[in-house]
């Protein structure tokens, strides 16, 4: 397979997953804030911007932090490279360039997702975003599901899986890093604490999975364990990284840098400890994890998409020589 093709498949999956994660974060925030005091809301929205890692860029374009400005930034803003509309457009562009590798169903799913986002009535969305968020998440799930169900599980599929799992692992880490310290800083009997912990679980689609296993006590340390070290919850960091390692092993049998980095991360999660559960220890652990996942992404890029080092995209014209006799 051409490295260009592998790279497009990988990024298609990453962008779809990214769009889905961002959408869920927004949705959860809207719901959680219905219970929160009005004065806390600005901080909660700022948290979203910080979590997604584009705070500097955001402050260049907006002076205040409100539900409207943050939604606008995260969903639509053309200066935000990670805005949902841009993620979906890039996912579709990448999918289009490898149209012959993916199945017809996948192409339709991603094209529908693109049309949904492009054709959205932005004012209607800002008045009642829930239905739009649900459609968007369904569209992303449909793409991921058709990838699993309609595509041969060969190398191209493994690159899709790798992109999806790495993106998902990074997002879970970011979500925990952003919400966990806020929650544990609150008093045990503060109702906001449970609200924050539930929001944390819901941001990772983990509420039901957690309650089934641990009941409704919402112990912060149990939540962190579940989201980070669970071997079977599909959005837990360990589970995502094991899948990534599996994908990498299927792509190539030699133990290159992606292997080594992912293997070490998985082993740490399997045999290590999350810490004493304090916000500070958690922040440190999560920071190391995020650095590790980032390094894994870089290693994948370097090992499989060497063309990435060269500016991708446009062909330039050679200069032409004028005909002029002496």
């Amino acid at each position: 397979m051409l490295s260009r093709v592998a790279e497009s498949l990988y990024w298609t999956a990453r962008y779809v997953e990214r769009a889905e994660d961002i959408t869920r974060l927004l949705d959860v925030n809207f719901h959680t804030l219905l219970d929160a005091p009005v004065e806390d809301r600005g901080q909660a929205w700022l948290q979203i911007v910080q979590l997604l890692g584009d705070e500097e860029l955001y402050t260049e374009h907006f002076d205040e932090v409100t539900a409207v400005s943050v939604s606008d930034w995260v969903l639509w803003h053309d200066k935000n490279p990670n805005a949902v509309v841009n993620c979906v457009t890039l996912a579709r562009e990448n999918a289009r360039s490898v149209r012959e590798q993916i199945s017809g169903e996948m192409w339709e799913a991603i094209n529908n997702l693109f049309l949904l986002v492009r054709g959205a009535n932005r004012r209607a969305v800002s008045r009642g975003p829930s239905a739009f968020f649900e459609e968007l998440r369904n569209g992303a799930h449909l793409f991921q599901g058709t990838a699993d169900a309609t595509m041969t599980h060969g190398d191209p599929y493994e690159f899709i899986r790798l992109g999806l799992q790495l993106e998902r692992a990074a997002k879970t880490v970011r979500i925990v890093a952003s919400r966990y310290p806020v929650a544990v800083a609150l008093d045990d009997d503060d109702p906001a604490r449970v609200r924050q912990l539930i929001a944390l679980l819901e941001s990772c689609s983990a509420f039901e999975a957690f309650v089934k296993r641990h009941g409704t006590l919402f112990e912060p340390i149990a939540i962190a364990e579940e989201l980070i070290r669970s071997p079977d919850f599909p959005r837990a960091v360990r589970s995502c990284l094991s899948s990534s390692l599996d994908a990498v092993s299927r792509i190539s049998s030699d133990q290159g840098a992606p292997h080594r980095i992912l293997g070490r991360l998985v082993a740490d999660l399997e045999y290590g400890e999350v810490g004493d559960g304090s916000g500070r220890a958690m922040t440190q652990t999560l920071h190391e994890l995020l650095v590790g996942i980032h390094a894994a992404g870089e290693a994948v890029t370097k090992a499989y998409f060497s063309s990435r080092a060269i500016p991708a995209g446009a062909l330039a014209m050679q200069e032409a020589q004028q005909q002029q006799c002496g």
Partner: protein
Amino acid sequence: MWLTVEHVTRFSYDGSINEAYTELRLKPAHRDGQRCSSFVIATEPRGVSVAEYLDRFGNAVHHFDILESHQTLGVTARSEVWTPDQFEDDEASPSLLDRWDLLRPSRYVPLGGAIADLAAEVEAPGPLLGTAQAVMAAVRDRMTYETGSTHVRTVADEALSAGHGVCQDFAHVMIGVCRLHGIPSRYVSGYLFDPGATGDGNSASHAWVDVWVPDRGWVSLDPTHDREQTARYVRVGVGRDYADVPPTRGVYKGKGREELEVAVRIREP
């Protein structure tokens, strides 16, 4: 007469580029009385396989690609050629459609503006060859030769309005005016040897014009010097205008700034 031509083109980039695809129209024609006895291409990086095909106009086109990253791309073309004392048309008569192609405006030769004004001024004394010669004289009259006054993308009416240009512009202007007079005309890319030249002489490519007139067939005229093609002209290729027969053309991927150097040397062996 026998002539040798060496045409060196060199692209340098200040960063690495890759996936360069290059097309060359550098091989002297082997028709119309001219004989190309040898033609060799050397590339840099070396070890590139160069393929050849004939294009729509019968020109030999060489092409190659360099996929791995590189910072310079060089092409040296050396040829030995025998030129006839005068242009000897040995081509089949162009079909009606071919002639139609050569009467239409093309990328470098729009048929409005200054070109139309000049066409209205040139009197058509009767036989088309006479008209073509009158056009050639008018172009020579209107425009002064000035190196550096135009660039490779200058189109005919810009050059004519400005009143100066290089042989590429002279040829384009003459083609435009001839087309408006109903004479199918094509652009000729090649070289001109000047035995008396010193210093910078004989160090550039040249361009002139073929016109097609009934009964006579193709006639080759050089508006820059107001004369017919002689033994000192080396023909490489023909086309509707420069865009069809650029000596080199290509694309690449990369962000490096590009610098182009061209060196041409025409000599008697």
